[in-house]
Structure formats: C-alpha cells, structure tokens
C-alpha cells in the first residue's frame, strides 16, 4: 500500500470506530442532541467531558515523549466567539453537528442526509465566498491565543496541570450525577 492509501485507510478505520461509538452513545439522534440543548438530557455533555479527560491525560503521557503532536488552531477569542455562536444557532436549528450528522445519516435520519447535509456544504461555500471580504476588512485577526496550547508552556510533566484539571471535570460530572442530571 502506498503511504497515501495507508493514510486514507487509517482515516476510514478511525472514522468507523468514531461512528460506532457515537451511535452507541445515542448522539447520532436529534432527540438526544436537542435534549441536551434543552437541558433535559445530559448525554452529550457527559460524553464530551469524559472524552476530554481521557484524551488530555493521554496527550500528557505521550506528548513529552514526542509521540503525539499538539496541533492547535489559529484564530482569536473574538472569532471563536462569533463563529461559535453562529455554529450554535445552526446546532440548535439542525440538531446535529458536522460529526454527528454523519452518524445520523448512518442511523437513517432523512432530514440529516437531505436538508442538513445540503445546508452544511452550502454554509462552507458561503464562508469561502465571504473569506476574502472578511480578511480585507480586518475581521479575521489573530490574538495571543492563536495556535496557543498550554502544553507548549508547561515546564516538566504536563500531568501536574492535567490531573487537577481532569479531577475538576470529574467532580463536575459527579455533581451532575448526584443532582440527577
């Protein structure tokens, strides 16, 4: 297999596992995702926060050994907020996000494979058309958090930051369970 084909195959296999897990978690379903946004079903946030803790600890172990990259995105707090809120509006209206919509398609949701998919693809095209203007008008600035990751700045083992932070997230999850969420 050529290097390119191997990369494609890795993407496919990781994607299959991702889709399998998302479906088993129930988050390929509109009712579960919108249930989270209505604050009546906390499945989505439980999955995300647990995934963050595990992933963060794994990165803490492998990053100092140079076995995983730490790749962060360029941008700014301002644009993460504007883009994030626009995304949120779409998230609430559509009831899926770009990853879970693929899962929803596999789960048989016709609204996802028709309207949702058309909408997302159109949305990215509209952004591509706007990009030149946004850049010209100086909207797409970068601030000091552009490509920033705390991992690049921790002296010594990252665990001294990620273990307390992970514990804090787990405490939040525990309180949610105790509170019956």
């Amino acid at each position: 297999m050529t290097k390119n084909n191997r990369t494609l195959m890795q993407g496919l296999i990781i994607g299959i596992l991702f889709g399998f897990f998302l479906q088993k978690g129930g988050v390929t379903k509109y009712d579960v995702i919108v249930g989270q946004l209505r604050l009546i079903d906390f499945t989505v946030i439980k999955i995300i926060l647990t995934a963050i803790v595990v992933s963060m600890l794994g990165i803490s172990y492998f990053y100092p050994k140079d076995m995983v990259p730490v790749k962060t995105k360029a941008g700014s707090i301002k644009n993460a907020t504007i883009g994030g809120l626009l995304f949120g509006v779409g998230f609430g209206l559509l009831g899926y996000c770009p990853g879970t919509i693929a899962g929803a398609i596999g789960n048989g949701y016709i609204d996802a494979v028709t309207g949702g998919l058309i909408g997302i693809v159109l949305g990215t095209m509209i952004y591509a058309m706007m990009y030149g203007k946004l850049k010209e008008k100086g909207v797409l600035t970068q601030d000091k958090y552009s490509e920033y990751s705390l991992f690049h700045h921790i002296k010594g083992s990252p665990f001294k930051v990620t273990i307390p932070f992970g514990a804090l997230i787990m405490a939040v999850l525990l309180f949610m369970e105790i509170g019956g969420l």
Partner: protein
Amino acid sequence: MDFLMLERWSPYVVGILIGLLNVGSLLVSKKPLGASTSFMKLGGIIYRSFDKEKVQNNEYYQKNELKLDWGMMLVLGIIIGAFVSAMLSGDFSLTAVPEMWASEVSGSFMLRFASAVVGGIFLGVGARWAGGCTSGHGISGTSFLSVISWVAGIAFFIGGIAVAFLIYGM
C-alpha cells in the same frame, strides 16, 4: 459479544472510548478527530465541477487541498460505523422527521427540511469562522488545552441552548 448488540452504552464508557480513539488517532495518524473541514472540501469539489475558475481563484479554497484525504475518509467512516452499530442493535430506522420535532413543532417534512437547511448553513459558516466544530474544537482542541477551543466549545452550547429554548420554550 452481546455488548455490541446493545442499543445504548453508558455515556461515560462512550466518552472514554472516544478519548482513547482521539489519542490513538494522534499516535497513528498524527491527526486529531475533526469533521467540519471535510464538508468544506466536499463543497469545494462540488463547486469546482460547476465553476473551476472561481474555485481556483478563491483565496479560501487555495489554502486547502481539495482532494480525498484522511478527514473525508473519517467522515465516511462515521457514516459506516454508525450504520453498523445501529444495524447490530436493531436501532436503525429511516426517520424523516425526528420524534421530538414531530410531536412538539410540526410533522411536516418540508418545515423540518427547511429548518435543517438553514441550520446547516449557520453550522457551516460558523464552523469555518470558528475554525472547527464539536469534534475539532469541542473534543480535540479542548484536550490540547487550547483557550480558543474552550471558548468556541462554550459558544457552541450557548448558541445551541438559546435556539433550542426559542424553538421549544422553557
């Protein structure tokens, strides 16, 4: 292997598996999980088949190589994985209008279709503007301890919660 036939797993089990998957992806492919870029590339490829010149001259598309890549295969894989999981548990069903929307908003497919298109447009613009989605920022970026990703992730939910309450009431 009965657990593969179960309809639902605990969200904590799923969270742990997705976390491990993200680490595995970083180890093997040197790439974090993320989905929204692939929709942009798909859009660029479709657009290019209608108007090659316009896409070639577009500054945003120029920044990205528009061809089948790891990320697009990942999204394709998600569709397959979710399908296999749903088939194994008997949870697969063709649904035109999700139950919650049908019972509390409207049973009309056209209305649901229109809301999905409009929602999708916001999602597409927002994801590109913010530089990622619930996977790319919400899981990968946050676990890289990126401040921008935490801000974006929180904004996703603030916007989403606001719209869900507008649609469904308190």
